[in-house]
């Protein structure tokens, strides 16, 4: 795949503090990459630096093979859609969409045709003369997307684009964005803290923590094989147990598991779908978490107090769950991290 964006050893310092450092990121042409991470981990800073709104303290950025970190933001042809949408309030919907075309001095007829096609694309035909304050949050988001597309950017970047939308709108907007991404073969980078969003939409995910990318890879890879406890903990549906490996066996108060690891202290990660209740009384039932599409039981170890999450099968597991149980682990799904 042809490389569209390459970030090498990027470092950004704000108020004498390292906000992001050692950032290396490659995005292929037409690829959809999500930058995932908790609030304050530097995701938005990364996008702003790529867009040219923040100066680099070190490193370089290449777009389409050309170094761009030394050229101003308005010449990079990389568009960043901000979290707060930022539609121009003194312009109508059509004027907002046509803005980039006007700046490029595209003739009026072509501008009008472009706006019409984009309004159709975002399913807002006939609303071109509306004022921005007459639109709903979802409509504003769609107009912002159309305005960005009108500029025909080489790379489209979105900073938490759906965070202000309700769940239904968010789903629709995800579909629209993916549709546009495929139709225009757009190279897209999206910042999000929503793991489901990142897993469901991306070709690749870059997971950030503390201003660094701690892992990048396909959604399947990053979910199934997190490289560290931090990476694993981000996805939230796992339990962790500290123990020691000796003689090919991981031993903690809660579990004893055969493994093929060097001796030392390890953290065992157990996903909620890798545990199966079995006869015993090591764990006490403390909570049922029902989310509609799935149901989880939370148990607590009767000695250490550590918690384990167990995904129930709603069809076969009758509720209430057993008040005391033990668990057997699916060895293939376990992950160990040296500590």
């Amino acid at each position: 795949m042809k490389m569209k964006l390459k970030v090498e050893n990027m470092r950004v310092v704000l108020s004498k503090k390292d906000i992001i450092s050692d950032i290396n990121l490659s995005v292929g042409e037409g690829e959809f990459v999500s930058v995932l991470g908790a609030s304050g981990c530097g995701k938005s800073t990364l996008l702003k630096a790529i867009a040219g709104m923040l100066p680099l303290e070190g490193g370089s950025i290449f777009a389409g093979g050309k170094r761009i970190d030394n050229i101003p933001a308005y010449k990079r042809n990389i568009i960043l859609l901000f979290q707060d949408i930022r539609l121009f309030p003194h312009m109508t919907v059509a004027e907002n969409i046509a803005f980039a075309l006007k700046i490029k001095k595209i003739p009026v007829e072509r501008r009008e045709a472009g706006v019409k096609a984009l309004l159709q694309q975002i399913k807002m035909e006939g609303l071109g003369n509306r004022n921005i304050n007459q639109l709903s949050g979802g409509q504003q988001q769609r107009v912002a997307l159309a305005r960005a597309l009108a500029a025909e950017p080489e790379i489209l970047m979105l900073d938490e684009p759906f965070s202000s939308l309700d769940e239904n709108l968010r789903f629709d907007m995800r579909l629209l964005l993916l549709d546009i991404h495929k139709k225009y073969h757009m190279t897209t980078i999206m910042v999000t803290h929503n793991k489901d969003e990142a897993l469901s939409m991306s070709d690749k995910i870059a997971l950030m923590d503390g201003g660094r990318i701690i892992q990048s890879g396909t959604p399947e890879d990053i979910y199934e094989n997190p490289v560290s406890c931090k990476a694993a903990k981000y996805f939230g549906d796992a339990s962790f147990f500290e123990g020691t490996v000796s003689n090919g066996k991981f031993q903690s108060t809660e579990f004893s598991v055969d493994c093929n690891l060097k001796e030392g202290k390890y953290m065992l990660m157990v996903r909620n779908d890798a545990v199966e209740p079995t006869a015993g009384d090591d764990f006490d039932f403390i909570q049922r978490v029902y989310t509609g599409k799935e149901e989880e039981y939370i148990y607590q170890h009767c000695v250490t107090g550590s918690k384990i999450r167990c995904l129930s099968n709603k069809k076969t597991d009758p509720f209430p769950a057993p008040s005391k149980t033990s668990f057997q682990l699916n060895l293939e799904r376990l992950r160990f991290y040296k500590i």
Partner: protein
Amino acid sequence: MTNKNSIFRVIMALVAVCILIPIILMTAWAFTSRWQWPDLLGESLSLRGFEEVFINNVQGFRILVSSVFISMEAAFFATVIGYMSAQAFVMYDFPFKKWLHFGSMLPIIIPSSVFAMGIHVYFIKWGINDSIIGVLIGHVLYCLPYTVNILGDSREALGNRYEQQAMMLGCDGVTAFFHITLPLMLPSVISAFSMAYIISFSQYFITMLLGGGVVKTYAVLVFPLISAGDRTIAGAYTLVFLLSSMMIFILFEGVIKFIVKKIVGTET
């Protein structure tokens, strides 16, 4: 909510009355030959005041026109410099920012006579006393605190979010200013210009001192006439003052809105 609205309306009505009553009185005086206490109305209609303004005082109209131009220039420069200062104070961090901001307010903090005499000393040194350029600089300096404050508040409220977005869409700084910032700040720009214009146009002491009697503005012309106590003439001059200022405000608002509409109004 209704209660609050009623209070607001009463306050607005009081403000309107306070502004309108003097205008009505001066208008009545301008067209009256004699108006003695305790008569409710003046004795007879008279155009003596306007004859004095437009016919007898041959220099009056010329001074009015040149005064309008001086004040328009002063207001223009005060608005432009005020915007740039406001932009710097609001958007950038630099050493002694707070002190400099405070310094920019000094012309209205210290008495205008002290301010005028202070800059007069320097203008004599620089050889620009008793000249239009000296009067113009004095007026601009005196208007700056108002324009910096008006535009600073508005610039702060606007932030640089829209400019950043415009730059993402391919605008350089200047294009972003004319397409985005200026249209969004238009009400404040008009307010700042109007405020600066009226301060400059009504400035008597600074003009007298820095102009040394050589540079005559409308305020300098009118002040002794009003002081003389002839209310008919004072009324006529005041009406001309008011109407010319109103015309300038309308003209400026029209021109700047036309320019902005030319730039922004036809995006598609």
